[in-house]
């Protein structure tokens, strides 16, 4: 039961001319357990920075981020680029977050089976297509059985068919291993198809412009209701 409670009083970023840019000021976001929250915003607003702060990679901010749990949650992160280790095989890449023993390797193989890459387990990542590399990154994230999954435009620069296949895969994986998801994108189609809640940001400094709960089945999301929602999201 991992929630995310974000309260950022101030997050500054060094600007191009030596000055400072304020990315966040008095920004609050509460994410319910097992919700799929899509953060929709144009690039350059600091969405990646927000995920990095939640992941604990960036601690240089004034504020607090809580998870509503006793200990630290298990966090997995699907980055904008797959960030696989090119000198380790696909299987090793998925196994390494779990450990280096036989059990980790077995879990990695099972996970690769699930994402349809069992036959590539011994290949090196650079021999795979970008779509396949993104699958490996998903397998690595889900192999951890994470409480919280952070996703930073994880399907960007794929063609629409490839992105659609990966969205299907993500839905399948989440059905088996439910997790709280924070998904960053600038693509409304992706937002409407995946989110249980869509938060549109603008700025800077970033503030919540729209906050919509989405309670539609997949067919509706892909049909007219989804189109209407997209229009609604883009409305000023």
């Amino acid at each position, binding site marked *: 039961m991992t929630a995310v409670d974000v309260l950022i009083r101030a997050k500054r970023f060094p600007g191009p001319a030596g000055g400072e840019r304020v990315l966040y000021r008095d920004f609050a976001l509460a994410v319910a357990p097992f919700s799929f929250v899509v953060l929709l915003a144009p690039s350059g607003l600091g969405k990646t920075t927000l995920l990095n702060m939640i992941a604990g*990679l960036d601690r240089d901010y004034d504020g607090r981020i809580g998870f509503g749990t006793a200990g630290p949650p298990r966090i997995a*992160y699907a*980055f904008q680029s797959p960030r696989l280790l*090119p000198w380790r095989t696909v299987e*090793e890449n998925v196994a390494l977050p779990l450990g280096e023993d036989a059990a980790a390797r077995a879990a990695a193989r099972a996970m690769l089976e699930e994402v349809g890459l069992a036959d590539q387990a011994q290949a090196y990542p650079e021999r795979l297509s970008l779509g396949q590399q993104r699958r490996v990154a998903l397998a690595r994230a889900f192999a*951890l059985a994470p409480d919280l999954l952070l996703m930073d435009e994880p399907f960007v620069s794929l063609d629409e068919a490839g992105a659609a296949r990966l969205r299907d895969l993500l839905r399948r994986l989440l059905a088996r291993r439910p997790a709280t998801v924070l998904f960053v994108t600038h693509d409304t189609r992706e937002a409407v198809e995946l989110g249980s809640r869509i938060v549109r940001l603008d700025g800077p400094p970033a503030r919540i412009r729209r906050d919509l709960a989405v309670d539609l089945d997949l067919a509706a999301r892909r049909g007219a209701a989804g189109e209407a929602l997209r229009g609604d999201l883009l409305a000023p």
Partner: protein
Amino acid sequence: MAEAARDDLPQPAAAPHSLATGGPRRAAGRLAVTLGSLVLLVGLWQVAALIVASPLLPGPMAVLHAFLRASETGTLPRNVAITLGRVAASFAIAMAIGAAIGILLGRSPALDRVFGPWLIVLLNLPALVIIILCYVWFGLTEAAAVTAVSINKIPNVAVTLREGAAALSRDLDEMARVFRFGRGRTLRHVVLPQLAPFFAAAARSGLALTWKIVLVVELLGRSNGVGFELQTAFQLFDVATVLAYALAFTVVVQIIEIGIIQPWERHAGRWRR
């Protein structure tokens, strides 16, 4: 030798990639050209020796005889082995200490600002000065000899590895932190593989530099090894023996390069497309 000029410049990017290119046919073609070039060199040497006709420029056959003579008595293999031992010891020490210093400075710009200039000073200190100082301070001992060679080599390794450590991927570092790799796994699976090309570059230029300096160290303060034998031959004006030792050792170093460094590089680079 051409390597002498290269020693100062780390060139990790160029070295490892060149190995992967070309199929077996092209490799065979390159080998044929190399052999032809060496045969031509020996031929020119023979012609020059015939023209000069002096014991101060012995021909290839005279050098071969000197080589066989020294090999039969066992002095050449024994001295080559002794020198190789010194090369191995100082090479290992220099790689370990130089890599540690280089990685530390590459990771910490503050440390680099403080200690970077020391590296420049050491890098530009003539090998001969370091050798003399080591012998003066620590006596004409084996330890002083190996120390002198190591100190000569350490700044080169450090400068090369500093380059590599400064260029480590932040993306992969963040990945390792999010997925809680911990220190050991991060070092083995994330950091060291990124440094492998820089280790290879340091090892290659290191081997060339180390064995040349070992000969000088032996000439100045040891009573065995190839350097000592060269000095003896020098005093007797026995140029054939000088060349025999030089060629024998060059061949040994080439065998190490082709038999150890290149296969290791290919293994470390097997993931490349």
